[in-house]
Structures are given as structure tokens and as C-alpha cells.
């Protein structure tokens, strides 16, 4: 059963349509990430699921019940806010118990659930503190605890880690994912950080301008991006996207006309190549000139130039190369993505030119 399903959901701010006919479902017990650049409508979508915004069109169903016009409390969901939204005058215990106090849960049950949850998120020793006396990571845990203690089967998270430093963010990523698996809750998680999406999600919805660009498992998005936008958004560094020109021999990367890659169909393409799929060779391949090199420890990102297009190449270890050196770039054809330059969409049925095949 789908825990959450959206059908043709639309949201307008005045005259501007920010969400256009959005439809997707979230499987029960799965971790779904809404990913996209700022202003793509991912937070608005989450807030519509939460009931903090009312959809202008379409239906939202939670656990097979139409909740489109129901108030937030009736939807059986919890939410973790980007700013944590802790009540500054209440201590940790009172913050966590806020919802149970509203619902007048019996005292013994409250204490028992509080003990459980506090232990789970590691706050047992801090229950008497005020939020101002906590670090960012601890506040985040209070917000998580407040979401968990309600025992709702669905938890919505709006960029919960964006206020933390890099190291803590990484720890919390693992912790949130472990908690989600342990409790078996359905999570919808909004982020603009593709690394977060890749490492946590069962499924990612990549959004752009209020519309879905691609839905899939993290591997799908990484290996077979559906659009140029998906290719450029996912991966650090992202996929190289190279313009092509038509030659008599076939379609080639602009600046490497001697190496036709595809059978010419008169259309312009964009060739997508992941940096780690390209290797350097002294003898054969597409000629390029080396520019900057960026040493990252485990590997080095080299910038090579084909005429005026930059190509990033990932090489293991600390590559000792000279700027201005002439090299040849090689890759396996199966790792090459081809996009239609006009629509930006992935092309599956391209034909390799004789030279490339």
C-alpha cells in the first residue's frame, strides 16, 4: 500500500503556479527524498503533504485516505523543521512531550515513551536543558525525538541537516537512516544536497520548476540521468556535458571532429560522461589539453580541455601531470550518456558511428 500518494497536485502563489500537476506515490516504510535546487517547489510539496499549505488542485492521500483538505493534526504525520522549531521557553523534556500533552496522554505512558525515545536519540542526560543550552546537533535530536514520540508512521523532514556542520551532518545522515529502518516509518525528506539524497534515499524525486524531472533509486539517477538537468545536478563533480557538431563521418564532440562518436541524424546531441569513467591515454582517444588539477586525497580531478569545452577527469591517487600537456581521453561506450540537445532528454536509441564502435 502506498503510504502517501499525490495526484495532479497543483499549488499557486497568486498568479504563479509553483507546483504543476504533481503525481507520485511513496511506499510504506520507504525513505523518499525530494531533491532539487532552491525554489523548485520541494518544500511546498512537503508542506502540502503536512497540511501546512492547502493544495489548489488535485488530491493528496495518506494511508489511502483523502486528506487534501484536512488539518495537519488529522493526517497522522510528524514533521522535523529546518529551524527545528523547538519551543525556546520549554526544556527538552517538555519539548518532546508537547504533542502528548496536547493529546492528554496518561502520565505513566508519557514517561515511559519519553524514556524510550530519549535513549534512542541519546538525550537522556539533557532532559532538563533549555534549547538555548544545546548544540545544533542536540537541538536536531530534540526535533527528531519530538517527531518519533508521536508514533506516527509517517515523518516529514524539511532540510533537517542544513544548519549543521559537515562532520555532524554526515553522522546525523547515518543516524536518521538507521532510525528510519529501525522504526519502519515512511520518511519524506526534502534536501537540496544531492549527496544527502544519494546516501539516504530508497527513492529520489528530482524536482525542477515545480515539476518532476526524474524519479528513481539513487543508482538510476546517477547512472542513467533522464535529462541534462539530472546529469548536471547529481554527482560531485557532476557529469561532463559536451556539445556536439555534425561532420561527414558522424556526430562528434565539438573540437574533436576527427573522432566521430554517433551516426549523424542531423540533430544536435549532448554527450554526458562521468569524470570517473574517463581515463587518460598517451596513444589513442579524443585529444585534449590538461589544465588545472585538483588533488582531493583519494583521487585527483583533472580539468582537460577539448577546444573550449572543459572535461573533468577523475584519476586515482595524486596524479602528477603538467599543465598544457597533450593527452587522449578514453571511455567505454556503455558509460556514455547521450541527450537530445533541443529537449535535454536522454536518447536511448542512438547509434554509434563506425569509428567509435
Amino acid at each position, binding site marked *: 500500500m502506498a503510504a502517501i500518494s499525490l495526484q495532479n497536485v497543483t499549488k499557486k502563489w497568486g498568479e504563479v503556479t509553483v507546483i504543476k500537476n504533481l503525481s507520485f506515490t511513496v511506499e510504506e516504510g520507504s525513505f523518499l527524498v525530494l531533491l532539487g535546487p532552491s525554489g523548485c517547489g520541494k518544500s511546498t510539496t512537503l508542506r502540502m503533504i503536512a497540511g501546512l499549505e492547502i493544495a489548489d488542485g488535485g488530491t493528496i492521500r495518506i494511508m489511502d485516505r483523502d486528506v487534501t483538505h484536512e488539518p495537519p*493534526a488529522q493526517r497522522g504525520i510528524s514533521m522535523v523543521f529546518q*529551524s527545528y522549531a523547538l*519551543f525556546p521557553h520549554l526544556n527538552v523534556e517538555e519539548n518532546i512531550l*508537547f504533542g502528548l*500533552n*496536547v493529546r492528554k496522554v496518561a502520565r505513566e505512558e508519557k514517561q515511559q515513551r519519553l524514556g524510550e525515545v530519549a535513549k534512542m536519540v541519546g538525550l537522556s542526560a539533557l532532559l532538563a536543558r533549555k534549547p*538555548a543550552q544545546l548544540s545544533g546537533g542536540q537541538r536536531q535530536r530534540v526535533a527528531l525525538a519530538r517527531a518519533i514520540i508521536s508514533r506516527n508512521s509517517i515523518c516529514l523532514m524539511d532540510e533537517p541537516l542544513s544548519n549543521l556542520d559537515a562532520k555532524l551532518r554526515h553522522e546525523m545522515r547515518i543516524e536518521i537512516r538507521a532510525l528510519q529502518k529501525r522504526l519502519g516509518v515512511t520518511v519524506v525528506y526534502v534536501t537540496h544536497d544531492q549527496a544527502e539524497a544519494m546516501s539516504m534515499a530508497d527513492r529520489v524525486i528530482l524536482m525542477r520548476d515545480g515539476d518532476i524531472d526524474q524519479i528513481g533509486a539513487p543508482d538510476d539517477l546517477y547512472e542513467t540521468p533522464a535529462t541534462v538537468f539530472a546529469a548536471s545536478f547529481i554527482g560531485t563533480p557532476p557529469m561532463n556535458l559536451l556539445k556536439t557538431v555534425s561532420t561527414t563521418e558522424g556526430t562528434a564532440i565539438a573540437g574533436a571532429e576527427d573522432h566521430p562518436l554517433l551516426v549523424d541524424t542531423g540533430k544536435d546531441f549532448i554527450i554526458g560522461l562521468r569524470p570517473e569513467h574517463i581515463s587518460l591515454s598517451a596513444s589513442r582517444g579524443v585529444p585534449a589539453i590538461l589544465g588545472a588539477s585538483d588533488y582531493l586525497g583519494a583521487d585527483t580531478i583533472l580539468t582537460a580541455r577539448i577546444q573550449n569545452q572543459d572535461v573533468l577527469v577523475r584519476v586515482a591517487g595524486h596524479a602528477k601531470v603538467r599543465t598544457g600537456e597533450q593527452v587522449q581521453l578514453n571511455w567505454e561506450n556503455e558509460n556514455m550518456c547521450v541527450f537530445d540537445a533541443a529537449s535535454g532528454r536522454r536518447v536511448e536509441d542512438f547509434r554509434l558511428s563506425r569509428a567509435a564502435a
Partner: protein
Amino acid sequence: MRRVRSITPHVYGWLLLTPAAILLIAFTHYPTVATLVQSVFSKGTAIRPSAFVGLNNYRLLLEDTVFWKVLWNNVLFGIGTIPTSIALAILMAVWVNGKLPARALTRLAFFTPTILPMVAVANIWLFFYTPEIGLLDQIGRVFGFASHNWLGDPDTVLWCIVVMTVWKEAGFFMIFYLAALQSLPPELEEAGRLEGASRWYYFRRVAFPLLMPTTLFVSINAVINSFKLVDQLFILTKGGPDNASSLLLYYIYEVAFSFLDVPYAATLTMVLLSALAIIAVGQFVFMDKRIHYR
């Protein structure tokens, strides 16, 4: 160059403080001390010059039935105006902070009494309270009530002034509450809504506690105003009938400028100042413990 450098930093400090210090000393500290000094001297006349009389004026004050009357009036006035105007201010602020049509107009309407000078306000309310032709009596007549001299009856006159003062002050306090409400992060309310907290529950458990610093500020202002605001008495009642509507400051004015008894007025002023100081300190000590400052 050398001369400039030889001025030590603490001299600079004093120089920078001087303008503020002059104003403060000339208009606050010196008058206070001068008042204190005057209150222990007798009233000077052409024949008998003013002489040191110690606490004689204060002894006089204890026997002065008018003083006790106006002090009691002032207490009633405070009890009548302070909680009501604060409660009304919060209510109005919460209301105009929400989504409602013509919000700016409503806010302005609530704030208008504050902009009006007290003298103008008193004149407006004079029309309401006038017997026979006043608004109150005209409405009362529709429901068959007899005409009543609101400002002429010692039983109603003080409450007439209380109602008018609340009307004037609540809008002013509302502005502070409105600003405080708008500085509360909207996520707090959203988090409350997600947990199913009713508007009243959210207000009682979250918004009101977070408004406590504003409440302290407003309540101190309200207390001071309850002693300070006497303009309306000049227009409406002149303290009458039989001092039924006279307040401490108005009595001080009368003593000083109608009866020309400056030392006794100084004595009354000292009592007023001490009362205000004690109340303000009390409010800080009492409320500080229950206030969450962000």
C-alpha cells in the same frame, strides 16, 4: 599633536558622557534631590521665611484625608486600567496578527486613540458622558434607562475615567504585542498545529510565555501611566465631585499651583516617586524569574 595625545582615555570617556550627564543631572537628578530638600522645609511667606521642619510635612500628609482619598483612587484606577488594557492589547494584537480582510485598516483603527492627544480624547468622551444629550444617555433611553449624570456621580465618575483611559492605552500597548508576536518564528505555530494544539492551547503554552518580556515592559509602562496620565481630569472633572475622581498627580498639581504650597507638593511627589520605584523593582524581581528572554 603631543597635547592631544596627553589627554588620557578616561578624560575622553567623561567628555563623551558629559552632554547626556548634563541633561540627566539637570532634569532628573537635581530636581529629585531639590524636591527631597524642599519637602523637609516649611512654606515660606513674606513675614515668615521658609525653615527646616524635618518630617513635619510627612506627618501632615498622614493626617491629610484628601491624600488618602486620592491615593486610594489611584489604586482603584490602576486596578481598573492596567490588567484590562493589557488583556485588551493582547487580544487585539492576536486578532490583527492573523489573516483578516482590511488588516491594515483594523490595526490603524486600534492605534488611533493613541495618536490622539489626551485632551482631544477627553473632549470626545465628554460628549459620551454628558447627561441627557450624551451618547451613553441617548442609547440608554432607547432601552428605557433613566438619564444619569455619569461624571457628576461620585460612584461612577472614576470608572468613567478608567474606561476612557483603557480605550486610549490599549491600542498603544497593542503595538508592542503585535511587534513581539511578529518576531515569533512561524514554525512554532506550525509545529503546534501539527501536534493538534488548538489556538488557545498554543497561545497559553507557547505564545503567551514568549511574550512575557513584552508584558513586563508594558506593565511597567502601564503602572507609570496610571500615575502619570491626568490630562483627562482637567477636561472632564477637575478631580471632582468631592475628589471622587482626583488622582495623586492631579492632587500634587493642585497643591503646588492652586494652593501654592510647594513644600507639601514636594512631599507628595516624594511619596509618588517612592511608590513608583518600589512597584518597578517589585515587578522586575517578581517577573524576572518567570520570563524567558531570547
